[in-house]
């Protein structure tokens, strides 16, 4: 057991944990808002809006995240009008920002499907009662539809959050040094494959387990006792 190597591996890979968490949390935050908007668009009666939401979802869920990532990072980086524009280049130029954008757009598609399922699962009786009580559209959404949809969607969304954490590992292919990025670099240098895989894997398992437990705790809090 090469303790030196293990120590070096744990400290190096540990440096990536912060990056992984930052990538995941910002992507999830942006992705959730976008996904909510898309879900609302999808269930709205407007053909244009729901059509756009449907195609967005199909495209981002039907292609691999790696392709989307490379398309944004290398593909968009190819054009002069992107390179010369400071706002666009801030997003696409650096690996970290580009990865966040790609991850956010990707998770928005999946989130919209999950939230759509949540919104559609609300018993129509509740909505009719709210309408009968004279609630405005926005008030109805804020007090009835949204909370119920969230509660319904929570298990599935917890799953999606784990998928986003795993998705951050792809950022390593565009030079971002999160957990997988550090792990790969160490593997190339030291060839201690199994040890490094184990250490990186344990970091991910810890993060994901903590996440799942947190989601379950929130689920318990939200579910009213009895019925």
């Amino acid at each position, binding site marked *: 057991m090469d303790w030196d190597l293990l120590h070096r591996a744990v400290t190096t890979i540990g440096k990536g944990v912060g990056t992984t968490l930052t990538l995941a949390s910002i992507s999830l935050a942006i992705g959730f808002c976008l996904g909510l908007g898309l879900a609302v668009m999808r269930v709205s009666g407007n053909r244009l809006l729901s059509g756009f939401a449907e195609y967005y979802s199909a495209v981002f869920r039907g292609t691999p995240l790696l392709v989307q990532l490379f398309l944004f990072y290398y593909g968009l980086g190819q054009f002069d009008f992107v390179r010369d524009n400071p706002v666009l*280049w801030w997003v696409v130029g650096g690996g970290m920002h580009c990865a966040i954008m790609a991850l956010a757009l990707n998770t928005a598609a999946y989130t919209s499907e999950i939230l759509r399922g949540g919104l559609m699962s609300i018993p129509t009786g509740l909505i009719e009662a709210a309408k009968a009580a004279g609630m405005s559209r926005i008030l109805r959404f804020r007090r009835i539809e949204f909370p119920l949809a969230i509660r319904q969607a929570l298990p599935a969304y917890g799953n999606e959050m784990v998928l986003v954490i795993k998705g951050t590992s792809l950022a390593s292919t565009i030079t971002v040094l999160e957990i997988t990025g550090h792990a790969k670099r160490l593997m190339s240098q030291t060839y201690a494959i199994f040890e490094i895989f184990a250490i990186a894997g344990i970091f991910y398992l810890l993060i994901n387990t903590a996440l799942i437990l947190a989601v379950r705790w929130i689920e318990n809090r939200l579910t009213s006792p009895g019925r």
Partner: protein
Amino acid sequence: MKLKLLSLAAILACGLSPLAHAAEGELVIGTEGAYPPFSMADANGNVTGFDADVGNAVCEKLQLKCRFVVQAFDGLIPALNAKRFDIIISGMSITDERQKQIDFSNSYAEFPNQFVAKKDTDLAAAKDFDTLKKDLSGLRVGVQSGTTHAAYVEKVMPDAQLMTYDTLDQMQIDLSSGRLDTSFADTSAQNDFLAKPEAADFQLVDVVIDSASDATLGKGLGIGIRKDEGDLKARINQALCDLGEDGTLKTASEKWFKLDISQKCK
């Protein structure tokens, strides 16, 4: 059911034979195929370049047929140990780290390394090592994953922001699009890049860094051989000596690099 199990067992028994020598009298060579001018592969898998020439010359001396297998650079050593090929000829330097995994032949060439930088920058004007090191602080340096260049920059210039790429192409794309300030590779690969239209704004930095200057850069290029193949190693070393003596290595080197980087037998 029993017949199926028996036949499966029979197939397994036949299958447990060594993998690499598909045919007798053949030498399977692993190479990267994406590192001009050492090793280039076209869409059909034909390999050309300095390494291909060295490989073909060695095969001729050993009176074996050559067959090249293309493989990503940082996977060459594991694949050699998994017997996917017999030897590695891919611009690979002999380093202590690598010698823990595999054996090397004697060094057959040694190349200098340089940085490239955008013209009219401080880095481009650097003329000595210390200025170079100072200028690199905080800059984004591109290197290829698993190479001695990556190890060198990490060790000798820790202030620089190191960005690793799987292939040269990716690194050069990011360099020309402005995501990197500079890159570090051997001089011939850099010259190859500078010949491309997208590299119009770039130039070599005048400070040449020899392999001799730091252990991370290795002790010259070697042919990678598995640890238990002492016999093959001896034959290859003999072949390399002969090729050095009769000038084949020098000719190949001048053909691809316009200078002689070959090394004679010690």
